């Protein structure tokens, strides 16, 4: 085979790879570890057409703050509008949108089980650099209540599951 052709083919393949979306995605996903010491939690929006109870929104915000604090990775976990101890420190802003909500039924979970009456909350979350507005990472996360015990198993507990998943993601991506 003509060596020139071989070299040109190889160069073409390399150029193709560099321009490919996979490579681009890898570049976008690169996050500087241990850079962000503060995170601001905003109240999630609700996608139009979804009826999401107001107390669930309150519960979700509080669960997010609590779970992020429990990771002990961030020096400060702030609520929307809260004053930071160091205004110049790099900070992440957590924003999200509730994209799916299934109310479920606790009595059905208890009586039938096997996933019947499951409560589910799905949100699309974004971690955004607060200073530049760049989206650092985004993903769909969910929280569910599948088991319906008499003592535990309240439907509103789904927000806690979602918050735990968000906190786990934040720990893995930024530290």
């Amino acid at each position, binding site marked *: 085979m003509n060596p020139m052709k071989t070299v040109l083919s190889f160069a073409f393949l390399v150029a193709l790879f560099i321009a490919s979306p996979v490579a681009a995605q890898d570049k976008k996903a690169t996050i500087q570890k241990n850079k962000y010491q503060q995170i601001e939690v905003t109240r999630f929006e609700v996608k139009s057409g979804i009826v999401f*109870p107001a*107390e669930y929104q*309150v*519960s979700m915000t*509080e669960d997010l*703050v609590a779970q992020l604090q429990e990771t002990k990775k961030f020096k400060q976990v702030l609520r929307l*509008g809260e004053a930071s101890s160091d205004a110049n420190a790099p900070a992440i802003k957590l924003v999200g949108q509730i994209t799916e909500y299934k109310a479920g039924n606790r009595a059905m979970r208890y009586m039938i089980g096997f996933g019947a009456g499951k409560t589910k909350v799905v949100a699309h979350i974004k971690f955004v650099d607060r200073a530049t507005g760049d989206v650092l990472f985004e993903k769909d996360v969910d929280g569910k209540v599948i088991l319906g015990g008499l003592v535990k198993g*309240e439907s*509103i507990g789904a927000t806690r599951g979602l918050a735990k998943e968000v906190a786990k993601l934040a720990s893995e991506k930024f530290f």
Partner: protein
Amino acid sequence: MCSHVRLIETSHRILPAMLACCLCMVAATNARSALFQQTQGGQQVKPQIENSPGSAQPQTESLTISKVFHVAGIPKVSRNTRGYLVFTQNEMIFHRGKRELVRVPFQKLRRGQLLAGGRDNAGAAVALAAVTYGIGGLAMAVQSKVDVLVFDYTNENGGLMGLALQVPKDQGKRCREWLARFGVTVEEPPAATTPAKK
């Protein structure tokens, strides 16, 4: 073998009695709360005169709502914590016993909502389930109607916080009327909204 037969015979006699006891307890609790709401409406207006004999002191009023359950919003306070809510002329305070769990001045309130909700009778369901080999847990399907108050307010650092409380049915309206006197608007979403259930 004989002891097992005796045990089964005894349990057959005791079981209906225990079931009847539990049903009576549930009925009595519901009747008591209904009677309380009818006679006093769960509202106590307490005129309080400040301690200062010999001088003219202004009377202060407050509105107290009992049997209030915390749903979400107060850090490190578990869900379903029961307490009572006191509205004064410039703030609202949620108490558990003698302990204040949260105190929110009216000027910090950003938004208020009054929603219809339901509350599981988890205690009664557990009791019934215990004596009926789990079948009584079906009582959980029956929910008590409650009003849900949801507030947005700012904390001392300027952060946006939320507070969700369940109050007895029709008491939410009294809270809204009290707050309206002091310039705090509590919205009531249109009926098309799905009621919030616990």
